């Protein structure tokens, strides 16, 4: 047990199984599936109000997804904390701006390139998740295991679009 807590990484099958168990408990305890991207959309209203004024809070999308702290926003904050704990235990916490990778490119090994790729990538990720209605966890895991048609199309599109782009740019 002690070894497992301090180990650098766990088998993906163990992690996948535990995420599966966590999904059951999330349904039982919180009556909700795991998901993350809606929280970013809620929070984006605050950022938008800085540029475009308080009228953004009246927009249809923000009426549907009100900019408030709720269960899923807390889940996202929890992910930051949980990952931090794991990183500290395994001695892997370190501040970095340029990701360590064997897939080197100007987009990830140069400061300006990394700012560009992370920011533009983030915009597409945020927009795409809202259009598709979920992300890798909400559609890819939770939606897929509920056998949702929308989720399976999204999951496949995420990886088809991702692989095509990765082969082009890296």
């Amino acid at each position, binding site marked *: 047990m002690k070894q497992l807590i301090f180990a650098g990484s766990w088998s*993906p099958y163990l992690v*996948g199984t535990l*995420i*599966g168990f966590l*999904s059951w408990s999330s*349904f*039982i305890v919180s009556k909700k599936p795991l998901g993350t991207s809606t929280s970013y*959309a809620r929070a984006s*209203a605050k*950022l*938008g109000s800085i540029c475009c004024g308080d009228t953004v809070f009246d927009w*249809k*999308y923000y009426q549907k997804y009100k900019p*408030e*702290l*709720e*269960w899923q926003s*807390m889940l996202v*904050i*929890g*992910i*930051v*904390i*949980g*990952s931090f704990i*794991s*990183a500290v235990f*395994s001695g*892997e*916490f*370190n501040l*970095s701006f340029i*990701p360590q990778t064997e897939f080197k490119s100007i987009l*990830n090994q140069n400061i300006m390139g*990394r700012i560009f790729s*992370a920011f533009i*990538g983030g915009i*597409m*990720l*945020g*927009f*795409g998740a*809202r*259009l*598709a*209605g979920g992300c*890798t966890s909400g559609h890819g895991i939770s939606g897929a*295991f*509920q*056998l949702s*048609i*929308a989720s399976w199309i999204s*999951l496949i*599109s995420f*990886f088809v*679009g*991702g692989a*095509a*782009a*990765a082969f082009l740019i890296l």
Partner: protein
Amino acid sequence: MESKSRLLKGLGTGIIFGFLLHRGGVTDYNVLVGQLLLEDFTVAKIILTAIVVGMIGVHFLSDRNIIELKPKSGSFQRTLSGGLIFGVGFALLGYCPGTIAGAIGQGSIDALIPGLLGIFTGSFLFAAFYEKFSDSIDKNNFKVDTFPELFKVNHWKVIIPLSAVIIIFLLWLESIGF
């Protein structure tokens, strides 16, 4: 605002989820991009295992009325186009919305500043887009939400073969050395 106990449940679930994402290696740029380049299959192994375990458990619980499933709806054009845009963003940024939170926890500043700012901006742009085009975005939703409803079969007739296909695929991946 939701009750304090609900917020705490969310936080607790997130802490476990974040711990697992980091331990699984999927808060690492290299592992995520490696999956998109088909060189590292950690992401696929985690997602597919979680799908099989999650799928069997939640349907078992829902059959006994212990939980209520909430499958997502959508339309073909919305999920396909949104999914492809998301995928390109995933390749550029190297993280997705869940794993970026994990990457922030392990100290990745590229995730915290430009990455997060980008996701907020993109979500805001969508809200603006939705303000103008909500009618066409919300059009042509699937008539039913799930495959068992679409095929008009009992859900276990989908769950069992799908689980078998996923397990065979994972065994095959291992057998060819991934």
